[in-house]
C-alpha cells in the first residue's frame, strides 16, 4: 500500500470514529430519559359520573376520560387525538368526542367517525364494581 493511500485510509477511519463517537452520545443526550412511569390504577365512585356525563382524569400522565354511556355503561378512553395530539372533549348533545384542533369526531367507543385521525382512541381497561370503578 502506498503511503498516501494509507494516510487517506487512516484519515477516513479516524474521521468516522470521531463522528461516531460524537453522534452516539449526542443522540443519547437528546433522547428522552428512559424508564416508563409505573402503571397506576385510579378508583372513582360511580356516583361521581351520572349517566350521560363524563369525567376527565389524568391516568399515568395521559389525559383520559371516563364516560357513563346511557346504553352501554362506562368506558375509559385516552383523550389524546390520534391525529396530532390535541385533547378531545365530550359533546353530550352529539354523543361524540370532538377534537378542537382539526375537527375530528369519535364515537363513544373511541372509533373515528369523521376527520383525519388514522386510528381510534386507545381504550383503558376498567372494572366496574358495586360502588366504584377501577381504571387502568
Amino acid at each position, binding site marked *: 500500500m502506498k503511503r498516501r493511500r494509507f494516510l487517506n485510509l487512516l484519515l477516513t477511519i479516524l474521521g468516522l470514529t470521531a463522528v461516531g463517537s460524537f453522534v452516539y452520545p449526542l*443522540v443519547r443526550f*437528546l*433522547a*428522552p*430519559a428512559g424508564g416508563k412511569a409505573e402503571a397506576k390504577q385510579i378508583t372513582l365512585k360511580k356516583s361521581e359520573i351520572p349517566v350521560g356525563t363524563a369525567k*376527565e382524569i*389524568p391516568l399515568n*400522565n395521559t*389525559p383520559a376520560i371516563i364516560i357513563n354511556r346511557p346504553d352501554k355503561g362506562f368506558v375509559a378512553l385516552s383523550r389524546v387525538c390520534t*391525529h*396530532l*395530539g*390535541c*385533547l378531545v*372533549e365530550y359533546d353530550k348533545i352529539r354523543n361524540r368526542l370532538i*377534537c*378542537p*384542533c*382539526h*375537527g375530528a369526531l369519535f364515537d363513544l367507543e373511541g372509533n373515528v367517525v369523521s*376527520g*383525519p*385521525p*388514522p386510528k381510534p382512541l386507545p381504550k383503558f381497561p376498567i372494572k366496574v364494581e358495586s360502588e366504584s370503578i377501577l381504571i387502568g
Partner: protein
Amino acid sequence: MWGKIKNWLEIRIGLDGLMKTHLTEYRVPKNINILYTLGFVALVFFSIQVITGFFLLVYYIPYSEMAFKSVQDIMGTVPYGWLFRQMHVVGSSLMVVVVLFHAIAVFFMGGYKKPRELTWIVGTFMLLITITFCLSGYLLPWSQLSYWATTIATTLPTAFPYAGEIVAKLMKGSEQVSGITLNRFFALHVMLLPLIISVLVGLHIFLVRRIGISSPPFGKSPEAEKPWTEYRHVSHPDGYSFFPDFVLKETIMVMVFCAVMFFFITFLPTLLLPEEANIPADPFKTPAHIKPEWYFLAPYQMLKIIPNKFLGISLQMIIVLLFILWPFLDTAEENNLLKRPRLRWLFFVSLILWMVFTIWGKYS
C-alpha cells in the same frame, strides 16, 4: 475628528477602495425595481428580531414554572416591556411576510434561473429557518396557544412510521410537550437557529455579490442575455450605483414595513396575541377552536380536509421540496413570466390556492 478616523482606517484596511468596490462603484441594473429591495428589508427585520430578542432575554425565564409569568411581567410590569415584546411578535410575522414576498418576487422575475440556482436554494432554506424560528419562539411564552401549537407541530413527524416516533420524541424530550421541550426550543431559538441563519445570510449575500444582482426580465441588458457557459460576474456597468441610489430605495421600503409594524402594535395589539396567548399552558385542556398563526393556516386547513395523516403531511413535504428544487425543474431559458403562459398560470393558481386555504383555515 471624522477625517482622522477615516485616515486611520484608510491606512489599515484601505477604506476608500472598499467603499468604492462594494458601495459607490458597485452597480445595480438600470431597470431594477422596488421588489429588489425586499432582501435588505428581511435583513433589517432579522436585526430587529435579534435586538428585541436580546431585550426580552433580560427578563424571560426559560423554566416552565416561571416562563408564563415572566412574559406577563414583561408585558405588564417592565417599563416598555410590552413594546419590545410586540416588536418581536409583530416583527416575526412581518419577517415571514417579507421573506415570502422576496421569494415570490424572485420567482416572478425568474431570478432563480441559471446561474442563480444556489442563491435560490439558500434563500428557500432561509425561509424554512425563519418559520422554524417562529415555531420555536411560539412555545416560549408557555401559554395555551403556544403549548397546543407545539403539541401539533411536534406530533407531525409521527405520520411517518418508526423514524417519525423517534424524531417526535427527540423534539419533545418527553412523551408530551413539557418543561424539557421548552428548554430544547429555547436553546434552538436563541442559539442554534441564529447561528444557522447567520451562515445562510452570509452565503446568500456572498452568492448575490459573486454573481451580481439579477436583472428584471423586462428590458434586460445585453450582458445578462449572454449564455452562461462559464463563471462571470454581472457588473451592470450602465446601472445605478448601489450607494446612495439603491440604498435610498431600500431605506424607503424598510420605513414602509416599520410603519406597518408600529401601526399593528398601536392599533391592533391583540391581532397576534389572542385570548389563548394570555392563559397559562394547561396540558389537560385544549382550547376550543384553536387556530395556528396566519402563515400555518393553509397547511392547517390541508391537514383538516385530507383524511389521511400520512398523505396530508407527505403532500406538504413534497410541495416544499418542489419549491426548493424549482430551478432544476424549470430549465427553460425564458425568464419573463409574461411570455410563459403555463408557468404564469401555475404561479397565479398556486398563489390563489394558498390564499383560499389560508382564508378557509381562518374561518373553518
